């Protein structure tokens, strides 16, 4: 039972975690990214569309990463290079993603709503027979490569940010771009690269959403997960471990919410759980910060 819960939490949090990491990278580079929802949706669409055409999950994931990176380029060019307002561009991209995926679904595949095709297969899961019922281990096993990649990325991200020269530069650029420029960092090129990289991460998030387990694309299937990622970036203060924790919290709130339905709680109320818990967590952090300040 607990294994089940843990395993579901891990499944539920992965796309959000990947997108939140993208958001955190951008945040660190000083580009506020609210286009996560839209980019994830594009990633999901491309992953499934590629699967339909070529049948290869690996190719699907790669092209999702690539296309979403391209899709992020307006934010990279406009937001980072040209001093456009990232919020404006983000809102535009979200809308463009929703409209374009729906439109292309009809225009290319002649279907509306959902794209299912026998050629689309879910990413393979690592199941080791016999271990599935071992507590915790069983829950940690049995996911696909992207889930493990997302954990790995948290550590890579952490080391990158706090231990490598490039991470140091990123932190500097995000904090005081003019100072970084004066120190010889090419701020806009750096920001552009990061935003595009983050686009790729969102592509992964979308691929995980579409191919992680269901193997299909449904219109608007991100269903607000990108916004949760935006909130997770805030909650985790753009720190890799912080956002991992925030996403874990979300996954947990969601999975527990689903279970509480079984206990007779109306689903309208359990749906609120992740948001309410986030709000409470932020209020808690805020109160603590206030106490610290007033000491």
């Amino acid at each position, binding site marked *: 039972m607990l294994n089940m819960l843990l395993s579901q939490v891990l499944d539920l949090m992965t796309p959000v975690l990947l997108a939140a990491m993208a958001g955190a990278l951008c945040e660190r580079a000083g580009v506020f990214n609210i286009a996560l929802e839209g980019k994830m949706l594009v990633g999901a669409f491309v992953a499934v569309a590629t699967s339909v055409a070529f049948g290869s999950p690996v190719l699907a994931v790669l092209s999702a990463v690539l296309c979403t990176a391209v899709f992020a380029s307006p934010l990279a060019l406009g937001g980072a290079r040209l001093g*456009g307002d990232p919020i404006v561009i983000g*809102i535009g991209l979200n809308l463009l993603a929703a409209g374009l995926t*729906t439109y292309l679904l009809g225009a*290319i595949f002649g279907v509306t709503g959902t794209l299912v095709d026998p050629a689309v297969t879910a990413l393979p899961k690592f199941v080791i027979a016999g271990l599935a019922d071992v507590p915790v281990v069983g829950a940690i096993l049995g996911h696909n490569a992207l889930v493990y990649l997302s954990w790995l990325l948290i550590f890579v991200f952490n080391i990158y940010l706090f231990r490598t020269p490039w991470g140091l530069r990123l932190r500097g650029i995000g904090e005081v771009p003019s100072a970084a420029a004066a120190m010889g960092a090419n701020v806009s090129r750096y920001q552009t690269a990061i935003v595009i990289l983050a686009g790729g991460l969102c592509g992964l998030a979308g691929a995980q959403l579409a191919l992680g387990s269901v193997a299909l694309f449904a219109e608007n299937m991100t269903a607000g997960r990108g916004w949760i990622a935006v909130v997770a970036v*805030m909650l985790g203060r753009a720190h890799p471990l912080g956002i991992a924790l925030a996403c874990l919290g979300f996954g947990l709130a969601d999975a527990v919410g689903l279970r509480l339905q079984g206990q007779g709680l109306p689903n309208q109320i359990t749906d609120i759980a992740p948001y309410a818990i*986030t709000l409470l967590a*932020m209020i808690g952090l805020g109160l603590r*910060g206030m106490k610290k300040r007033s000491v």
Partner: protein
Amino acid sequence: MIAAALDTKSRLAAILFSIVAAVLLGGLVVGLTGANPISVYLEIAKGAVLGRGLDETLARSVPLVGMALAAAIALRAGLVNLGGDGQMLIGGLAAALVALYVPVPGVARAVLALAAAICAGGLYAWLAAILQLSLGIPFLIASLLFSYIARGLTSYLVRYPLRDPATGMPETYRVASGARLPAHIFDLPVSMAMIVMAVVAIVIVVNDRSGVNGFEWRMTGLNARFAQYSGVNLSRQTQRVAFLSGALAGLVGALLILGQQYRFTDGALLAPGYTWSGLMAAVLAMASPIATIVASVFFAALQVGGFSMERALGLPAVLTWVLQALIILCLAARPILFRKR
């Protein structure tokens, strides 16, 4: 911000440029998928103004202008209100409740319902402002989170305690005709909701252009610390602006319930996406109220024309969403072409 650096003329030029560029890009998308862009645009244009199109464009403009102005007045003062959905829901539900259950004669009930919606939406946004002011939770995030909570709450309420069991939907009873807002005044194609919104819009425009309060909000948006040093009480002003932005969103909810839908149906207020369209119009207009109104009427026409185009040609109306998004993106990308170093 770009907004401040541009004078009115170059702002207009920028918007026009974005629209033209977006129309060309959108045409390219249509063309690539094998349809004829010219007939698509022709149908959109016809559908937006000919026959019933004009009425419908005007009707859709009411909530859109409302939500766009709600976003714009907040932006003007430096707040990003992503919680319009929630404020609209809370306001709409308050209006429905008053209109259904408060035992006063019809017209008074409608007025009371509007007032209740304004207060409810306003207070809901105010709550998010309080979180920003006291705990440093950004208004943008707090309002967004509140929006989700409002969705769940209203959804629960109309599903269970407030439900009209005669229909298959989670929705309240229908508001009695006495408490509704007339759809036509003196047999003109003008509804009460339009008049209310027009009055609100005029007040906002005048306040922004020559009102003392509007001036303070604008200066705060341009430099909050300067405003504070010059004697503006930032905390009080943030609360006030958040309240008004939420109140306007709440009013929109009420106008939709009392003027169009006549009952609160779960999901019905949010389905058309007025909040996001409105936010985009405000952004496109760089928060200038007049330009915001023009932009949102334009978006309303685009959407209405889109549905008409869909009926005529069978191409999905989401194309108009793509167009709207492209307009915004072209506006943001404008410096690529007009760049000086």
